[in-house]
């Protein structure tokens, strides 16, 4: 295998890993703060992407065609919309069930995800067909001996990693981050210390969902195609990545995302059997890792949650 081919696989793995990590971060944030698993995460992501797509259609209709302006507006609208949706889900579906068994939350968000997916399919104009997402990033590319390095891929990866870094800084350096960590660590004490519990929970769900919307737009820009089912597998992979890395730990989510992407690429590139089994391979390895380290590779420490 020559260098060009290897580089192509590597670039693909990094791209996928960044996307998965962005989704996994949401799962890990929600679990850290509320100890819940929000299974509608992938479909909320899809909803955000469709919101962004709708904004793009609106901008086109309004005659605003500068791709950078479009991109910024799409991102702001999509992330804001999804953050609001995430916060609303937390307020009206997750928090009221706080006293119920965690299984109920899991189930209700699972059903919500299906409802969102079907709603987009049925009520979005022509929602059952794939949509052509615009390519707003420069499509320049450099051919490095069989390896096509594309400017848009580089920008996407850098932006995605930047967002994760920003999130990390926010959690560790700001008052909101401190509050989130405090709630994650001990809800009762945090409340007695004067932290507004409700605001922190809603902010966490908003942030996690907004980050997922970014992953969705990134997905759209990278593949130039979105569809109502895109959140299903992304959600599942993001969840697995969060579990593998260690649910409740931000670094674990990032690590898990890249591990899963790496497994998929290895599965399709190096294994002799048909690439149709790459997901089977990746999930099988995930099962093995979970058997080996039931709490994930970087387990959540109660004193250092999120």
């Amino acid at each position, binding site marked *: 295998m020559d260098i060009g081919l290897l580089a192509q*696989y590597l670039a*693909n793995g990094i791209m996928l890993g960044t996307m998965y990590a962005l989704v996994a971060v949401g799962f890990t944030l929600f679990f850290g703060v509320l100890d819940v698993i929000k299974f509608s995460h992938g479909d909320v992501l899809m909803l955000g992407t469709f919101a962004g797509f709708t904004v793009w259609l609106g901008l086109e209709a309004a005659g605003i065609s500068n791709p950078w302006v479009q991109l910024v507006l799409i991102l702001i609208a999509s992330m804001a919309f999804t953050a609001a949706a995430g916060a609303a889900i937390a307020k009206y579906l997750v928090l009221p069930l706080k006293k119920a068994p965690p299984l109920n939350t899991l189930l209700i968000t699972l059903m919500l995800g299906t409802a969102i997916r079907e709603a987009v*399919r049925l009520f979005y104009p022509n929602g*059952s067909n*794939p949509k052509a997402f615009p390519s707003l990033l420069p499509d320049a590319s450099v051919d490095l001996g069989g390896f096509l390095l594309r400017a848009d891929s580089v920008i996407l990866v850098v932006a995605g990693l930047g967002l994760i870094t920003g999130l990390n800084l926010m959690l560790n350096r700001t008052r909101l981050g401190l509050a989130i960590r405090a709630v994650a660590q001990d809800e009762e004490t945090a409340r007695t210390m004067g932290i507004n519990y409700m605001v922190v929970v809603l902010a966490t769900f908003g942030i996690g969902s907004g980050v997922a919307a970014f992953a969705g737009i990134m997905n759209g820009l*990278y593949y130039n195609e979105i*569809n109502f089912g895109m959140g299903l597998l992304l959600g599942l992979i993001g969840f697995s990545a969060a579990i593998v890395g260690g649910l409740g730990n931000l670094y674990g989510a990032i690590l898990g995302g890249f591990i899963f992407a790496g497994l998929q690429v290895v599965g*399709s590139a190096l294994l002799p059997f048909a*690439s149709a089994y790459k997901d089977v391979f990746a999930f099988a390895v995930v099962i093995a890792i979970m058997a080996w380290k039931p709490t994930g590779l970087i387990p959540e420490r109660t004193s250092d949650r999120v």
Partner: protein
Amino acid sequence: MNSRFVRKTQRLTLAAATAASLLATGPAFAKDTVHIGFIGPLTGGVSSIGLGGRNSADLAVKLRNADPNAKYTYEIEALDDECKPNVGVQVATKLAANRKVVGAIAHYCSAVAMGTVDVYHKFGLPMTVWGAVLPDITYGNEYGEITRVNGTMINQNETAAKFMLEQGYKTWAVIHDTTDYGKGHNTYFTKYLEEGGGKILGAFGVTSDQQDFTAELTQIKQLNPDVVYFAGLTPLGVRVRQQMDKLGIKAVFQGVSGIKSDAYFEGLGGELAEGSVTFLEGAPAEKLPGGAFFLSEYEKAGYDSAPEAYGPFAFAATSLLMDAIEEVGPDRKKIVAYMATVKDHESITGPITFDDHGQNTVALITPYVAQSGQWVVWEDSEYASGARKLPGKQ
């Protein structure tokens, strides 16, 4: 005498009035309602095709109901198989178990049809396939209930292989989904291509909901084929074509009948779709013997989605079923017997003749090329006239 005259005239008027009222409301009194079923993917990724088929079948029923010569009033029950075998078996059972339903027009997705043929056979319900192309649906069993108006992927791939070899291409890479549909296409295409002297450099099976094809396409780029042959349905085809471009693969994109839909252009935009090639049984609606009629009626009925590629077949299958009912009455057994004798039966897709497996022997396959945002019959395209060139041709 006077009173007798009065009575007589009274009787006459009464008779006349009765006759008049019978004439006026005659059809409503005289005609029984016959129930038939339609099954197709009405939701999900390929629902545009399913809805087109449903509308076309519905149109056939409406036209027949408007025909004063029809012996029955028809009512169509449309069910959704979601292109999923498990759902398909459920709705097929629901339909077949309803004794009021005497016949069905069903399935676009081959994997679904493979699962449901046993159900129709068990219940003795005559079913005519309107879209699914896997040969085994008719050839894999001895069920008299199962017939099909559209051609199979055997014919399709024979023509496809021959056509592409004639264009001068020598090497192919294959991406197929791992359903019966994708695998079947791959099998027959490979067979006919290799017989014709073409070479397959590599074949990649992918799951039918896969998002990322970079790994497969990276290997394909290394193999550097003239043509990428894709066997699967539109949503997947859109992704593969899209990502080919991302990786800078310049090969021709050759699809199967599964990508012959308007949704292909909606998903890709005109520029990337340009120059894609695909094949479809029969001829385009406007070129069919009854195509102009079909399209104008479809337009008039005002459906909110296009008939898509298989609409005419759904229309023809529904008309055939209703012809059978007109001829032998609403009886499942008699309809099955009638279907076995269908020969040169007139339809908008051309004459229908069933062989001993209930397969229409239509061998007409039409090549299409994507040109300026729509599928154009190859012979009419600027590619055939030389004004535009497929990739890799001088």
